[in-house]
């Protein structure tokens, strides 16, 4: 009797567990259609010469081989790497400095922090539109920099050297408050006792920061570096809107993202665009795996 009851219970529980599948089903079906399937046909398309106009023809690895001698693609790798290094390294340092600044106590801190956070609000499209105006040849940036170099008009965006730099500046401006928040959370998580202990042991503030806090911030540092690098590899909107002619002048702002858009939606060369996407995917996977490696072997941790 007891045995039969138990058996019934087990089957009730087992039947109940199927409900889990029912609950996750809508999401799973959706992602099968709008994630897994496109991911697979993306790889497939990169092996065809599909142009939207005629049915795809299998070309094997031809698209990839063509990319090796494709000047726009090769240039875009340089442009992307330049944008990645140019924007991430200053972002790491400046956002950490900003976090250290706002971690201190001083009057008016909360109000000033709020003002500092304002770049969190606009979308990248808004950021771009504003910076186009700030970078007007006789705009506010010229007013500030112009007198130093003796110019009354600077064509920031049409200059081959200046335009990638100012786009990096716009980028840094728009993301620093976000990474500062991450650093600040990391700093706040360090127990005050550890700092006090270091001070009692005779360390000064600087030593305490370098020897105690910085090692404990390592997971935060890995996170900030990985997220900012992965995001910068996908640089698109700033270059698309701010730079003249979508990624110009003379393609100095044509990132891999812009190439995907150009091949796909300007020239309708979907096969080539898909191949560039796969290359971008490979770059990002490399960054992700480095992050996982750095993040896991944690010699310094509170746990």
């Amino acid at each position, binding site marked *: 009797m007891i045995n039969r009851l138990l058996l019934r219970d087990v089957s009730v529980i087992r039947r*109940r567990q199927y*409900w*889990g*599948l029912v*609950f*996750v089903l*809508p*999401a*799973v079906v959706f*992602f099968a*259609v*709008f*994630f897994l399937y*496109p*991911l697979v*046909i*993306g790889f497939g398309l990169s092996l065809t010469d599909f142009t*939207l106009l005629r049915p795809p023809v299998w070309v094997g690895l031809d698209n990839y081989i063509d990319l090796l001698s494709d000047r726009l693609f090769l240039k875009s790798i340089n442009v992307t790497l330049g944008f990645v290094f140019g924007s991430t390294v200053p972002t790491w340092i400046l956002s950490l400095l900003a976090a250290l*600044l*706002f971690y*201190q106590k*001083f*009057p008016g801190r909360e109000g*000033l922090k709020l*003002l*500092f956070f*304002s770049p969190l*609000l*606009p*979308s*990248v*499209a*808004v950021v771009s*539109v*504003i910076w186009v*105006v*700030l970078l007007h040849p*006789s*705009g506010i940036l010229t*007013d500030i920099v112009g007198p130093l170099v003796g110019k009354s008009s600077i064509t920031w965006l049409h200059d081959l050297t200046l335009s990638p730099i100012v786009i990096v500046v716009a980028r840094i401006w*728009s993301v*620093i*408050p*976000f990474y500062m*928040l991450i650093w600040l*959370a990391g700093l706040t998580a360090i127990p005050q006792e550890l700092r006090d202990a270091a001070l009692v042991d005779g360390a000064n503030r600087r030593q305490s920061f370098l020897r105690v806090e910085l090692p404990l911030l390592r997971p935060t540092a890995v996170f900030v570096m990985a*997220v900012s690098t*992965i*995001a910068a590899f*996908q640089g*698109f*909107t700033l270059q*698309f*809107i701010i730079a003249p002619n979508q990624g110009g002048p003379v393609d100095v702002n044509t990132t891999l*993202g812009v190439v995907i*858009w150009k091949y*796909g939606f300007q020239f309708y060369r*979907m096969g080539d665009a*898909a191949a560039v996407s*796969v290359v971008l995917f490979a770059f990002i996977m490399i960054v992700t795996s480095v992050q996982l490696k750095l993040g896991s072997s944690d010699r310094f941790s509170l746990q």
Partner: protein
Amino acid sequence: MANSRQHESNAAFEARLRKRITTLILFCTAVLVAVIFGFPMYFMGISAFKAESEILATPFRWLPETFVGFEHYARAFELAPIGQWYLNSVFAAALQVSVAIFVGAMAGYGFAKFRFRGKRILFALILSIMAVPFQILLIPLFVLVRQFGWDDSYAGLIMPGIISAFGVFMMRQFAFAIPDELLDAARIDGAGEFRIFLLIALPLLAPAAASLAIILFLFSWNNFLWPLVVARDRALLTLPVGMTQFSQPYRGEPIVGPSMAVSTLATLPVALLFLFFQRYFIEGMMVSGIKG
């Protein structure tokens, strides 16, 4: 004795002075940093009220000399179907946030509270979605949406983003906190599984979903790449895509004022969210890494 006390208070005075100076330096640095970072947003807001000739004037005018009221806003609405774009953005965001929250809650609840075959691999699928950047999917997703006959339609604009993997992931985290006893009690009372989800789990998940809702709203409201490629009809554009038309002069007429007005309109809902729900806003941004 007196001498040493004198000495001591001198030292104390010096320490206090040094602390004052440090605080002053910190304060001045923070003011400088805050002004640099706050300036572009101030520039956007104030320029929308300046005469066109004054926006780029040297030296910069902190307040408009000739206040033009909402002239630039009105001009922006004349130049482009801003109202339509605004509605499109609101419509897309409302639909995407509510469906993603509901379906995300369902899936998160399923993953957290049930054991079933294939659960681990299905959850791994959800996690892998978050690791794959959207640009990789852009081309094949566009081809797919075209096959469905959805290009240049609301369905194409909204459907691919209507459920969020991040939403499922967050909801699963929240659902772990629902006590099993509560669910079992309802089962003993004879409630069906779907009723239990709707009447017990969902209300418990709702408050936790506040920061998730804000993030999903930002994802949708700020989305640029997908609406850019999928919407060609001018009436179907969303605000971020449409407003880029303002970054160039209109038939030789400088339209910096209207472009700043549109930018302000696009940022206003986000600014309000930030002011009223600052904690959830910042929390949500940090867990999602949205700004990146």
